[in-house]
């Protein structure tokens, strides 16, 4: 370490890519005269095997201890040459690259000027190289467990994959049952599989899998730590029902004084439940839950002469004294599969969702057509004597999607196809009904989608190109005002039922998860993936992955695919059992640190903390870097007034000589 720097400089021709615009021999000759440069060579392709061999041989024969490669962008070949150094027994971080291709030969035609610039860039790299220090990538153990937040199809699939691979999974679901949005759907497009039929077995598997600890009616309270070692606190909300005793017989729900008086979340509000309830018949676990916001006993302290549920429960499972429970678990990876919310149609007042009973959302329609829904799958509007079967049914697409006025510029990707599916179902159940779809564009890009769209149209569903401007009531009928943009004619259609094809939105609690896991949002407010193309399931926080609609709208197959992707990404860490921590991270010179905490505030990863140290008998606060959390951005060091926190490989004292070289040459 205290040895004199002996630098080898390797100027690459890159065939003629560099050599054409840069006099590589002149650059190498120039480099050979720079301080501390022991050898300087030029070669056709430094990245080729013989090129790398050249470097390795020189390291051995010339005793080089620093290497400068002047070639393409370090974003291209830095890893390649680091490996070369390592193979020759030199610390890989003794490498510095000069980008004389992308930043020089490819952008400058004047050979003389390009050559001069290449010399400067090489000089700058040499100036830094002599001050490089060996760095070591640390490894930390990975806790062989995963936390999955969200028990929809994405969370279920990821949980099963990871559990099947032999690792522990903690699956945390906010509501009393797993299943998520998919469980609310009737059929799935374009195959018309019964949603429940394909989902329910998986729900059961999740509950019974020995490697899965299913925590329903639970929320993640706190997550600390870093990749491989997350400490998680989960709040198991009180169900007021002892799940060990509850047999799921359902007598309590029948007895509840509020039975049938509370809108059921599962039925999207069109069905009703009691204060003690099972969200839906296939719910997993099949355990009842008391709604603490509705239950008379819990809100008012009394329920008639005594809670009837308690009296009715033969198992004695009802327990109004139950308290929330905090469970602490340790995991190595986290998968965020929190899903989506549907667009609130009330935000488009022109469609009258809040005003007219027969303007409903697609999710409500799902429940209406579902055999397990409140109408038993019969499309019936109105109640009792007023009940009738609609004859004119209209679908309006893109409600809350592709709409800047509500802040959702994106396409929700599923509405076109679920609209087609629902239209098909209406046609199937009410062959006499006229079904119209008002649309902007029909996007049928998936496997079997276009075919399905064709089929639905063949079945008699009419597609009208034009977004309705207004819906109002005329007598018993709903009137849709629109413009048929293909024919450029105004339309006024009278219908019985309007179904709004509402889009998908980020969940309202997105912010909470962001704060928990230090994630970011993309412009559409969904969670931001690490790279839109190459790391679509990763996040900027190592060890945290995304699955399903939390990352952006998708259909079921895409969700399942991404869930499997997230699971396999998590498994890479879990099965190797070790994770490498970046080497170019920050460190603190504690003897000059004054403990102001600026770096602590600045660090986006909470990787810096203040600790008390004994400085010659006086207790003082200094900053300390948690190496496992640091991502090596260096923002802390630029904000440190005393220059005490520095980023390895990008230290002030390494960059200043570069500035001197690049600034000083005139």
């Amino acid at each position, binding site marked *: 370490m205290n040895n004199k720097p002996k630098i080898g400089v390797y100027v690459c021709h890159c065939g003629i890519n560099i050599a054409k615009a840069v006099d590589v021999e002149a650059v190498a000759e120039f480099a050979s005269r720079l301080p501390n440069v022991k050898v300087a060579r030029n070669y056709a392709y430094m990245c080729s095997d013989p090129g790398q061999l050249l470097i390795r041989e020189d390291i051995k024969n010339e005793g080089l201890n620093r290497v400068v490669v002047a070639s393409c*962008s*370090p*974003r*291209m070949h830095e890893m390649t040459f680091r490996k070369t150094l390592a193979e020759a027994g030199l610390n890989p971080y003794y490498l510095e690259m000069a*980008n004389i*291709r*992308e*930043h*020089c030969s*490819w*952008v*400058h*035609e*004047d050979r003389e*000027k*390009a050559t*001069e*610039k290449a010399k*400067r*860039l090489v000089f*700058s790299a040499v100036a830094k190289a002599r001050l490089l220090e060996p760095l070591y990538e640390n490894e930390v153990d990975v806790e062989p467990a995963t936390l999955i937040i969200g028990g929809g199809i994405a969370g279920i699939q990821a949980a099963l994959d990871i559990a099947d691979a032999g690792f522990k999974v903690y699956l945390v679901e906010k509501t009393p049952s797993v299943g998520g949005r998919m469980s609310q759907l009737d059929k799935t497009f374009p195959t018309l599989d019964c949603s429940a039929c394909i989902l329910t077995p998986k729900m059961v598997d999740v509950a019974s899998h020995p490697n899965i600890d299913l925590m329903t009616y639970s929320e993640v309270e706190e997550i600390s730590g870093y990749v491989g070692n997350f400490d998680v606190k989960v709040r198991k909300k009180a169900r007021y029902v002892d799940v060990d005793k509850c047999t799921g017989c359902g007598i309590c729900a029948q007895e509840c004084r509020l039975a049938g008086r509370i809108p059921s979340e599962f039925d999207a509000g069109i069905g009703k439940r009691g204060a003690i309830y099972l969200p839906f018949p296939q719910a997993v676990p099949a355990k009842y839950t008391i709604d603490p916001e509705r239950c008379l006993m819990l809100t008012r302290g009394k329920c008639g002469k005594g809670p009837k549920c308690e009296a009715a429960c033969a198992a004695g499972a009802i327990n109004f004294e139950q308290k929330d429970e905090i469970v602490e678990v340790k995991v190595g990876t986290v998968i965020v599969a929190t899903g989506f919310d549907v667009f609130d149609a009330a935000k488009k007042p022109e469609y009258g969702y809040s005003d007219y009973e027969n303007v409903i959302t697609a999710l409500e329609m799902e429940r209406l057509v579902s055999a397990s829904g409140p109408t038993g799958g019969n499309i019936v509007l109105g109640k009792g004597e007023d009940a009738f079967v609609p004859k004119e049914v209209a679908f309006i697409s893109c409600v809350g999607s592709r709409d800047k006025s509500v802040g959702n510029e994106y396409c929700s990707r599923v509405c076109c196809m679920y609209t087609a599916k629902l239209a098909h179902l209406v046609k199937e159940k009410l062959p006499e009904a006229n079904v119209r779809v008002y649309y902007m564009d029909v996007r049928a890009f998936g496997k079997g989608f276009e075919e399905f769209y064709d089929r639905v149209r063949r079945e008699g569903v009419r597609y009208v190109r034009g977004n309705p401007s207004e819906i109002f009531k005329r007598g018993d009928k709903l009137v849709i005002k629109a413009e048929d943009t293909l024919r450029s004619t105004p339309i006024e259609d009278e219908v019985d039922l309007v179904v709004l094809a509402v889009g998908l939105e980020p969940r309202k609690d997105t912010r909470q998860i962001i704060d928990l896991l*230090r994630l*970011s949002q993309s*412009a559409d407010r969904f969670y931001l993936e690490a790279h839109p193309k190459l790391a679509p399931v990763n996040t*900027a926080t190592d060890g945290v992955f995304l699955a399903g609609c939390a990352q952006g709208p998708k259909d079921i197959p895409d969700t399942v695919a991404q869930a499997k992707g997230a699971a396999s990404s998590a498994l890479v860490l879990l099965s190797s059992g070790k994770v490498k921590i970046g080497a*170019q991270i920050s460190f603190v010179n504690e003897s000059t640190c004054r403990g102001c905490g600026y770096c602590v505030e*600045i660090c*986006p*990863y909470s990787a810096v903390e203040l600790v008390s140290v004994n400085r010659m008998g006086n207790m003082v606060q200094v900053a300390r870097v948690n190496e496992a959390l640091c*991502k*090596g*951005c*260096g*923002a802390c*060091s*630029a*904000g440190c007034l005393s220059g005490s926190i520095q*980023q390895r490989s*990008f230290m*002030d004292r390494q*960059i*200043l000589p*570069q*500035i*001197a070289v*690049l*600034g*000083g*040459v*005139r």
Partner: protein
Amino acid sequence: MSEQYEPNIVAFLCNWCSYAGADLAGTSRTQYPVNLNIIRVMCSGRVNPLFIINALQQGADGVLVSGCHPGDCHYMEGNFYARRRFGLMKELLEYIGVDSRRFNMSWVSASEGGKWKDVVEEVVGKAKEAGPFEQFRRNKINW
């Protein structure tokens, strides 16, 4: 100022957006002036504001700091810090009478090779107008 005066710009580019954008400009064979030399840092948030003064002192005629667009930072917020620091440094340098054309900041994403060329041309052009920097350049004349 002689006609052959060629300014010398030191540029600090973040690895993920602007450096990649400059790489893209190269891959696309976009031609631009040679006067700008790049120092790679991982994030524009790493750019110590004193680097800007130091570059001018060590002979640069102009300085550029370039990072990801707001919201795109690979490290989430580094460019926000860079923006605040640069904004103030700019005020300070202007206040003591350094030509404001000498220090620039830009957002260039990994996909904006064309914008990178525009930025380089603008920065070099402005530095040419401002002429050689002498005000507090470290200089042997001072010895």
